[in-house]
């Protein structure tokens, strides 16, 4: 394993090249956000002015996006985990059909889903102008990701037999659900949660149509900023987006960590 042939170095160079191709624009964009004048380059100096401007003009969109992402996560957990459980239990044909239909919102373009929502609920009180209107769209779009990842874990751990084991030891439905079903589905719930939060935070397609001037989300504001303000401001916005979402994802990872360790155990 010590000696590496030319093939290894060629592959490494290629990999680094591809990485650079993907990472450099991101780095450039983030750098642009703290450059005084992007046109004249880094020599014009670094500044936090643009970041401050973004914070002033768009902090509401950031908090709204985070709020919607968290609410979306809550909804997909409450709807998705029991749905996955029911689908896992039932061997019937309708259950399989529902499982397939659940993926439809992912396959259908977000624009179409958004239009359908608007056409249907436009006249329903203040719903159209509320942030919950966007939430509904996001839940529709992200629910399949939660259900799918939880279902996969349920099948992998043979949840049905585990539950039968628990039942034979005297555990009723509630006890089984909380002491066996939820803990053993944790990896799937975690993976689904990460998916849901990131997708909701970054969702633009559908939100572009669903939002109103008072319910802008972060990606919508970002498009706005790039379209109507200096490039540096838009870039600073991207930087803020990054700084917001990375800690959020790390936090979710950490939340599930102790349990995962206990489940996997230290190899001896």
């Amino acid at each position, binding site marked *: 394993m010590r000696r590496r042939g030319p093939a290894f170095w060629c592959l490494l160079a290629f990999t680094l090249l591809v990485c650079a191709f993907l990472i450099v624009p991101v780095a450039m964009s983030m750098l642009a956000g703290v450059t005084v004048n992007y046109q004249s380059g880094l020599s014009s100096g670094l500044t936090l002015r643009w970041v401050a401007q973004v914070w002033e003009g768009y902090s509401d969109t950031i908090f709204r996006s985070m709020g919607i992402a968290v609410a979306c996560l809550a909804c997909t957990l409450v709807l998705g985990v029991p749905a996955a459980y029911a689908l896992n239990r039932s061997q*019937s044909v309708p259950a399989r059909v529902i499982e397939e239909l659940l993926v439809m919102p992912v396959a259908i373009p977000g624009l179409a889903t958004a239009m359908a929502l608007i056409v249907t609920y436009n006249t329903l009180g203040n719903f159209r102008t509320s942030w919950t209107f966007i939430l509904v769209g996001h839940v529709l779009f992200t629910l399949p990701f939660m259900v799918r990842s939880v279902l996969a874990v349920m099948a992998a*751990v*043979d949840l049905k*037999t*585990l539950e*039968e*084991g*628990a*039942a*034979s*030891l*005297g*555990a*009723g439905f509630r*006890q089984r659900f909380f*002491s*066996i079903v939820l*803990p*053993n589905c*944790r990896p799937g719930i975690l993976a689904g949660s990460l998916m849901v939060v990131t997708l909701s935070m970054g969702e633009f397609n559908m939100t572009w149509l669903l939002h109103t001037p008072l319910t802008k989300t972060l990606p919508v504001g970002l498009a706005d900023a790039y379209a109507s303000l200096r490039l540096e401001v838009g870039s600073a916005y991207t930087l803020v987006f990054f700084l917001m979402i990375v800690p959020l994802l790390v936090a979710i990872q950490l939340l599930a960590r102790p*349990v995962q360790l*206990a*489940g*996997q*155990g230290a*190899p*001896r």
Partner: protein
Amino acid sequence: MSQPALPLAIRLERCAKTFADGTRALEPLDLEIRSGETLVFLGPSGCGKTTTLRIIAGLEAPDEGGRVLFDGTDVTALPIERRNVGLVFQSYALFPNLDVRGNVAYGLRIRGVAPAERAARVDEVLAMMRIEALASRSIDQLSGGQRQRVALARALAVRPRALLLDEPLTALDAKLRDTLRLEIDALLRRLGITSIYVTHDQAEAMALGDRIVVMDHGRVAQVGAPREIYHAPASRFVADFIGTMNRLEGRVEAGRFLTGAGALGAPGLDQGAREVLFRPESVRLAEDAGELAGTVSAAFFLGDHTRLFVDCAGQQVVVECDGRREFARGASVRLALEPGTLVILREGT
């Protein structure tokens, strides 16, 4: 809730099972499982043995009209969690989110047993299964044999009224299977608990069962003690399924059974019989006075004995004989049948 003095007696009355897609897994079954006995359900896959176990456990409901009685009380409508039966699965079904101790303590925790007593009882069963050293291991650090011990400990910790085991040794390798089989046997005898054991392995069934229920296509083919099943199979299916059975075709004439290779004494044989059945160990090699003549077509040395395949005028007879003697293919041998060892089927199938 006083504990009955005797182990649980179970009765199945007209228990049938038809699945949603219309498959009949079990034909109506009446069966008495005696207090304290080990009853083995034996049969090929798809014979209905696991379905029967699941009906007794409460994991499946019998079709309309079927009843399950525990000590005379109808428990048909009672879900598994209220039947207090211990269940051991082929796939172990240990909870990966709990360690060994957590798994064994689970049932006691659910029952609200106080921590001190719970710990004492967990220690007791861990010691009984000789897995004290594994107490704080996580499940995925255990070997298959260790997992099955934990599964047994977990089922026994709650002191169930009956122990139900669904192919508990099938997933283990042969050597471990033998060891654990001996242990399970000793355990069941010591506890005196009513146990129901499902397997497709006849050696396991013979070794463990007080009685064996041989099943085929959702029907009971025979119920009886291991010796009874082996020596007096009720049907062709049972005769073929349990052990090796020799079969010779011929006809009865003047109290003797005539075959192409010689004549056998056949007391008790039906006049119209067209074939006789006998076990390999009922035949011995006779130097010259043998009733049947044949040639060796194959010989397998198995250490403690040699298994001979003898061609008796076109019909094959399997013989078990002393491992020290060598046989050449094509050698002529004469066989004698121990008197009174012909297997007579009780039904005409």
